[in-house]
């Protein structure tokens, strides 16, 4: 614990102390300007990293938000005569709103389409800033003079300290955000958006909020930018700047505050680095040596493919050769940046700080903080009354895909407290039926009632919020998260603090509570000892059990288990039966899709048999097993049974 505090906090404090004292020792105004810029870009890149790193989307709109924030602040000062704090807040507010407005349509898209949408937004905002001359003075540019802060006229070093303080606040807020439910949701929705929705967390709203938050940091950086330079031109905030920002984040290391800071220093220092010929030659030579060493090492250890090892060497080689041949390196600024980036992206995909932090954690072996004691299961999963009344009713449910009638006019009732089996041969429509109930697909027609009220159609998220939770036939765990985090993500009713309170760090207590609750659920499925193991590193059987624990964290009234025994070893299948019995004791109603008839016979109170999208039999497992129609559906030999 002490080691952890010392190393992580220590590194931050040392960096802070150095940055804070520089203006006292160095009176060079040029260096001070660079440091101010570093703090501003630091804020900007931390904001950009929310989308690029945590949401995993290539975001090309951050330059536009920088510009919008800058113009907002500039105009608030010029036209409205507002002070510094108010105009900076205005910049953040406006970029927050615009960010959310852009995110609504854009974040329905993935990958390239999202990148394109943000790229267009950048281009559009440049056009507007350029052409709306009555407001922005267009290409002429906008001059402002920096207003005093609370009556004090900030000099260059005073303004630098202001930027530094703001960067520290942003840093702390981000740390709070990332160590809360929000940070977990960001990780989870990259691994499996479907499961995130199915756990009632809401992929879309987290994406939109994350994007808007990142954009507002861009706006803040923009406000500081205009206060720093006291002059603005629309041409600054174009595609070129955007590419450089994006590359700063990637080069520094995604999903890392230090990475964003490091990327910002690179962006600030690069122009100076290029103007000194000797320095450039030395650095490119070092880069080549590193690339060669890393390539040889990677090939020897067989952790790299030939291309991955060779490409950085070739690209750094071009850089060194070019450095010796070209007359003026500054003209080639972009090409140099491109070559350096190419090497890093191919050879070190996690960025420089990502690599460094992995190496450092190996070196120092920092233990994760200790876990609290598990909550009592009765608090986490209160007993539900099993009164045998109708809990879920399907009425004439149909789901067609084109001409395929996957579910065709199915009606059945699941009684409260029962385990309801749903069986049938492959392609009989079991999974489709469950997908319709849980909201992945909207029904073509028919009704789904929970407690006599209609369930929402076609939204995993809203169905989950109504108390229907599920596991998946093909596992949909959040592989990069620990078993504990998988369950904590899905926990319902624990996280009550709104986003601003989370940012201010008020959510730590509920975080402890969530850990304790999640441990109780892990205990229920026998995974408590593996709470810190990443889900993707668990054994296959444990992964299946973890899915059940995670689904239980939603505190469901109805739990749908989609082939939980598929592929399980014999002992694990026995464990599964025990787990399901324990869940049953809590009074939770279940729908069980299963092929193993012994499991079905042992557990289910009622069994519904589907074939070709229609119900062919219903009753207890014993009755259904002897039904000639069921035997025919499974074995296809009616004559033999008749004889």
């Amino acid at each position, binding site marked *: 614990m002490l080691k952890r505090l010392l190393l992580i906090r220590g590194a931050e404090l040392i960096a802070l102390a150095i940055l804070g004292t520089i203006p006292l020792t160095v009176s060079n105004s040029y260096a001070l300007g660079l440091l101010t810029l570093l703090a501003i870009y630091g804020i900007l890149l931390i904001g950009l990293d929310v989308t690029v790193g945590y949401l995993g989307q290539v975001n090309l709109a951050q330059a536009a938000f920088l510009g919008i924030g800058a113009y907002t602040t500039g105009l608030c000062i010029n036209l409205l005569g507002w002070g510094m704090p108010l105009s900076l807040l205005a910049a953040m507010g406006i970029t927050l709103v615009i960010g959310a407005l852009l995110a609504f349509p854009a974040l329905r898209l993935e990958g390239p389409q999202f990148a394109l949408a943000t790229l267009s937004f950048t281009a559009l905002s440049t056009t507007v800033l350029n052409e709306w001359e009555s407001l922005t003075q267009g290409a002429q540019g906008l001059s402002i003079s920096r207003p005093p802060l609370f009556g004090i006229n900030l000099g260059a070093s005073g303004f630098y300290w202001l930027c530094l303080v703001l960067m520290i606040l942003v840093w702390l807020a981000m740390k709070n955000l990332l160590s809360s439910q929000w940070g977990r949701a960001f990780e989870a929705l990259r691994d499996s958006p479907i499961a995130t929705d199915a756990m009632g967390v809401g992929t879309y709203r987290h994406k939109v909020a994350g994007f808007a938050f990142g954009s507002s940091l861009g706006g803040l950086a923009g406000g500081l930018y205009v206060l720093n330079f006291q002059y603005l031109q629309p041409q600054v905030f174009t595609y070129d700047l955007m590419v450089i920002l994006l590359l700063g984040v990637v080069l520094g290391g995604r999903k890392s505050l230090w990475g964003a800071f490091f990327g910002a220093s690179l962006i600030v220092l690069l122009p100076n680095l290029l103007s000194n010929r000797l320095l450039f030659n030395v650095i490119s030579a070092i880069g080549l040596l590193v690339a060669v060493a890393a390539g040889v090492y990677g090939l020897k250890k067989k952790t790299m493919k030939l291309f991955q090892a060779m490409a950085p060497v070739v690209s750094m080689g071009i850089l060194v050769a070019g450095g010796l041949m070209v007359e003026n390196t500054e003209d080639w600024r972009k*090409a140099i940046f491109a070559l350096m980036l190419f090497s890093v992206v191919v050879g070190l995909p996690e960025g420089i700080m990502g690599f460094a932090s992995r190496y450092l954690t190996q070196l120092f072996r920092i233990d994760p903080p200790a876990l609290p004691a598990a909550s009592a299961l009765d608090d986490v999963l209160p007993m539900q009354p099993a009164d045998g009344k109708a809990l879920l009713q399907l009425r004439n449910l149909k789901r067609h895909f084109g001409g395929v009638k996957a579910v065709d006019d199915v009606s059945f009732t699941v009684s409260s407290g029962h385990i309801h089996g749903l069986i049938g041969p492959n392609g009989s429509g079991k999974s489709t039926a469950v997908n319709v109930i849980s909201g992945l697909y909207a029904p073509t027609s028919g009704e789904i009632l929970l407690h006599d009220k209609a369930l929402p159609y076609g939204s995993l998220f809203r169905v989950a919020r109504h108390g229907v939770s599920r596991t998946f036939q093909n596992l949909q765990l959040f592989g990069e998260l620990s078993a504990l985090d998988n369950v904590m993500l899905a926990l319902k009713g624990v996280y009550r603090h709104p986003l601003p309170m989370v940012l201010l760090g008020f959510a730590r207590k509920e975080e402890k509570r969530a850990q304790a609750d999640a441990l109780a659920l892990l205990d229920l499925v026998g995974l408590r000892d593996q709470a810190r193991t990443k889900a993707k590193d668990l054994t296959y059987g444990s992964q299946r059990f973890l899915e059940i624990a995670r689904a239980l964290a939603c505190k469901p009234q109805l739990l749908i288990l989609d082939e939980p025994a598929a592929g399980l070893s014999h002992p694990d299948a026995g464990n599964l039966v025990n787990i399901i019995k324990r869940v049953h004791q809590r009074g939770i109603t279940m729908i069980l899709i299963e092929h193993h008839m012994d499991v079905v016979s042992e557990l289910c109170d009622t069994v519904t048999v589907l074939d070709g999208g229609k119900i062919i039999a219903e009753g207890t497992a014993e009755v259904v097993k002897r039904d000639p129609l069921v035997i025919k559906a499974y074995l296809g030999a009616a004559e033999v049974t008749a004889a």
Partner: protein
Amino acid sequence: MVVSGALMGLVYALIAYGFQLTFATSKSINFGQGELVMLSAFFSLSLLDWGMPYWLMIPGGLLFGVALGLVVERTCVRLALEQKSEGWILMTIIFGLLGFSSAENIWGRDDRPFPTSLPTDALQVFGVNITPLEISVAIGVFTVMGLIELFKRKTLLGKAFEAVSADRDAAELMGVSATRTIMLSYGLSGLVAAMAGILISPITTVGPTMASALILKAFSVAVVAGLDSGFGVVLVGIVLGALESLTSFYLGSGWREAPGLVLLILALAIRPNGVFGKATIRKV
């Protein structure tokens, strides 16, 4: 005026068609495509400067485009696809940056005219003023797109292309190499980019920034129509081109870029898969 705008729209459609080619096989597109257009145009100009006859310059420029397309695929796309990541977005952006910077330094930052052997006097066709240059653009666009579609439908290699587009895994199981098909698609996409560069240069002049506005609009066309929409791009391209001429006439030339961008964001909000695109079903 509207007609010449629409003809410009055909060039957007041609570049957007290049995006579709690679998107079909690999679900990836080249964000440095604009630089491919620009580099091929510069290269063709250099071929003319070195005394190559006009009719030989065109295949030369196209070959250069194909080569660039293959380089992009090898250096920027293949590794990311193998890792099933979206790293190619960044990598192709980096490639574009390198291409832009190289062009600036090799050919200079100034715009240069691109000679043409066609007469520049406007003709009257059905009461509309059209220059032969603009007609050549239309002919060029339709020829290239038509030939590639014919190739895809009539040759074995083209069938392999369609097979990989439809279902990559199934095609691989049938003995079609997906890697080679993706190479082919990037080669063709480079060819299309080079063609666009050669067609548009006589109208716009050649310079390092010639493609940056062009490419944004091609992106809009591709996304608005849908990245799997086939000839939908032609229609959307024409509409967008016409819309642009109208906006720059009524609102001023600075707003010229706006309709494409607004159209794009609107289309994304209303139909994320594009006007002519197909919706995909989520599976678990």
